[in-house]
């Protein structure tokens, strides 16, 4: 539906809440929810004389992100005040970073794409404090201000205008989500506002190298809304441009109920933020030692893990993609492999049994009733032929709903595969005795028909053995008996 004459140019600013337990400049808790204003202190409330003191973990997390995208870490970085009046901004200025962010230029490598790797330029990433929230719709036409969120550390990650479609944007956001959760620097929870997105959109004629006038859509908090907002805004701009009009540079808001963007009224007053270095905080110096210690403690990142999974586990790209969807899944998978030593079997089981069941019951990996080790042990029983795959599935299902240990279940229900030649022989004999008609048919039949009938006998044997008879042994004995 996109007009082939136009090229969409998109840049993103993602506000990522960092997973510290206290605020960026005060010792108040950052936990989500809570009675309004119960997680505030003199600093968060901008009481007279209150002063900010910087949280080391917020700095560490910013550096981890920078290292994660191979960005330049600025040895000196400076906090600035961004001055404007708004009720959710108690000081009348936001402490942010303007000229000297912690993280400089870097590259974000996307791998969940048709091409192997797609690169997005990261302009910068800087630390700042989150604002509070306005609560509307009560109090007789007034708004209520809750400052619990004020002062939560944010990392604002700014990209170059490198996206050409909303699909790429979504890929990036998902990959970013993956990276920051792998790093453990954010829970990345969009619904709770841990990851919020400002989208800058402009259009230009295909082949034109100048950028068109852009609009900025603020504060979108779900992948779906990002996609919709972009789609609406692109069409809106095309309509304007095709009619010979001009796009106005402005800040817009995405209204998910009406599925449209519209200008933000609060941004209509021209603002002049009067940035200047925050005199209550001194310059931050980051030593090489500090950086190298962080570098040494970095976890394996998604892209590296992706490559390793394909290489060492001999699984397909698609499989790897699914298994890397979160760090928890990847860790789970690796423990299953380590326990049962069959990477392909593990991959199939984790995807088709585990993830399917988790999705169905809306659980996350850590809530799985069957631990990775338990699943690994169960699969090792398939590997060493103690049980069949089919039995394993039954055991898995039963263990899942009963929240029991699968191995104990196997013991308890005597579900171990029967390999014993004599036992199986007895059952086979019984089946042959019971089905003399079929035996006759078999003996008279051609090869093709014989195969079908053999299936029937195997089925009967399995039924009588409660599925526990080793199919190989069953086949072997049946073949022998029927050719007698």
């Amino acid at each position: 539906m996109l007009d082939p004459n136009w090229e969409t140019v998109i840049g993103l600013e993602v506000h990522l809440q960092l997973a510290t337990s206290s605020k960026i400049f005060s010792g108040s808790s950052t936990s989500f929810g809570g009675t309004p204003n119960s997680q505030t202190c003199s600093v968060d409330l901008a009481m007279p004389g209150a002063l900010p003191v910087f949280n080391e973990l917020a700095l560490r997390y910013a550096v981890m992100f920078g290292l994660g995208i191979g960005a330049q870490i600025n040895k000196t970085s400076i906090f600035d005040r961004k001055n404007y009046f708004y009720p959710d901004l108690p000081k009348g200025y936001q402490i942010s970073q303007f000229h000297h962010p912690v993280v400089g230029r870097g590259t974000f490598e996307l791998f969940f794409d048709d091409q192997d790797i797609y690169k997005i330029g990261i302009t910068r990433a800087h630390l700042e404090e989150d604002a509070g929230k306005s609560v509307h719709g009560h109090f007789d036409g007034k708004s209520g201000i809750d400052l619990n969120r004020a002062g939560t550390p944010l990392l604002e990650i700014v990209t170059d205008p490198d996206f050409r479609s909303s699909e790429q944007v979504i890929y990036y956001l998902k990959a970013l989500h993956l990276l920051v959760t792998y790093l453990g620097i954010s829970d990345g929870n969009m619904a709770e506002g841990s990851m919020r997105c400002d989208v800058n959109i402009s259009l230009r004629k295909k082949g034109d190298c100048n950028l068109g006038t852009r609009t900025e859509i603020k504060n979108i908090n779900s992948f779906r809304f990002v996609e919709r907002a972009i789609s609406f805004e692109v069409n809106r701009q095309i309509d304007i441009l095709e009619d010979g009009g001009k796009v106005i540079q402005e800040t817009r808001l995405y209204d998910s109920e009406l599925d449209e963007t519209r200008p933000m009224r609060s941004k209509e007053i021209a603002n002049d933020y009067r940035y200047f270095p925050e005199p209550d905080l001194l310059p931050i110096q980051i030593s090489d030692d500090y950086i190298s210690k962080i570098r040494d403690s970095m976890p394996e990142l998604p892209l590296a893990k992706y490559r390793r999974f394909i290489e060492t586990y001999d699984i397909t790209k698609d499989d790897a993609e699914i298994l890397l969807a979160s760090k928890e899944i990847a860790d789970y998978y690796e423990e299953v492999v380590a326990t049962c030593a069959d990477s392909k079997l593990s991959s199939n089981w984790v995807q088709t049994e585990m993830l399917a069941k988790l999705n169905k019951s809306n659980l996350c990996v850590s809530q799985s009733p069957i631990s990775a080790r338990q699943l690994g042990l169960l699969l090792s029983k398939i590997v060493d032929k103690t049980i069949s795959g089919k039995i394993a599935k039954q055991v898995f299902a039963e263990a899942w709903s009963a929240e029991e240990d699968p191995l104990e279940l196997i013991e308890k229900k005597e579900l171990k595969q029967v390999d014993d030649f004599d036992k199986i022989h007895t059952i086979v004999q019984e089946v042959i005795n019971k089905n003399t008609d079929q035996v006759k048919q078999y003996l008279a039949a051609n090869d093709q028909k014989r195969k079908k009938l053999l299936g029937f006998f195997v089925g009967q044997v399995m039924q009588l053995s409660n599925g526990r008879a080793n199919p190989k042994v069953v086949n072997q004995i049946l073949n022998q008996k029927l050719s007698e």
Partner: protein
Amino acid sequence: MMEIHSQSIAQLRDGLRRKEFSSEEVTRAFLKRIKSLDHLYNAFITIDEKEALAAAAIADQKIASGRNEVLTGIPIAHKDIFCTQGMKTSCGSKMLANFVPPYNATVISKFNDSGAIILGKTNMDEFAMGGSTETSFYGACFNPWNTKKVPGGSSGGSAAAIAALLAPGATGTDTGGSIRQPSSFCGITGLKPTYGRISRFGMIAFASSLDQGGPMAKTAEDCALLMNVMSGIDPKDSTSANKEKEDFSANLSQKLDGLKIGVTLKDCSANLDRDYQICLERALTQLEKLGAELIEISLPKNSLAVPTYYVIAPAEASSNLSRFDGVRYGYRCDNPENLLDLYTRSRSEGFGDEVKRRILIGTYVLSAGYYDQYYTKAQRIRRLIRNEYLSCLRDVDMIMGPTTAGPAFDIGSKSNDSISMYLEDTYTVGANLAGLPAISIPIGVINECPVGMQLIGRDFDESTLLNVAHQFQVATDWHLQSSVERDYA
């Protein structure tokens, strides 16, 4: 025995320890004087007699059981810029006329821990913006030496309270001279410590990179005692310096032999009153007699200090004062029509003219298109000024000069002339821009009004300043001259 209200903090401390009098007697003595005399000076904004006496009773129990801290039982007045839990902290403004902080400034906590008693909160220029204590919402404060004169400012209430013997000591803050200039005008001793020496937490901000709290008292010896209580790193203030705890009282008996004092009188002679020059020269002779070596120096960059200051201070202030918006505390206009109206009217009705003017100037110099031309430029010149001081202080141990242009001026004489009021800060703002410690001590009386000299020291070398000031006060009695007889005249 000397009357209680005439005694220094050190004398009161010794008297309390020797049980010559109780803390309750001391506290009552000052409260009584405030009640009977402060209508003449308007030095105090808030007094809480009950609280003060309750604290005195506790102090007396401590003294009786021998659990004395540094200042146990001694009443101290605090500039109304330091937040005091449960006690109104107005900053001299209508904006905070109803503000009772639920927390203490670090300086106040330290005084509480030292056993001191909060005598009351002193008058000041609104948000510390002024040099005369005339811009207070609570009315002008008057100089105890001559009530037609200003006490100086912005810590004018603290200075007047000490001069009128309504308090033995007080806290002040100094952004461009607000401790030193009123100390000079009121004939007392006041120290602006090195930037970072004293926590700014809970001290209502005027200009964050310039503000510094400090002690004001009759003597340098008392200032040293107060410094022992006030100073030290504070985890709540990122700009407080990580320095070893010092005993400022321990270093007050050093001879001045070999001490090099840089003298800047040539730079300022053209602007100085002749009588004041005589006082300064007399003080120099005294310092020389005490063993100091005088070296003439020049600080040409200092002529840029006042304009530099009047860019940086309003810029920081314009931002610092944005939090006063009528939402969470302080003044809120009646029946705001909308959000913009709430902000604009609360601020316009809550702030006085000088504060508004400085907010506008600060907003202007930070605004797009002017930032580099004014703000960045001023910060560059600030470095030149600091470098010049540092270079001088490599050759000399301290720099001596006038604190002010002359003795206290008449009330109302400068209120309509901003520039002339700003130029009052000519000799003091340099130390704020450079972050250096500076002390003002009395050196004479001109037409029944005192004048002081200023000594500027090296970074974190308050100790040497206090020692020189103390040695000077051992040898002279200007600091003992008092306005008090006039109270009863």
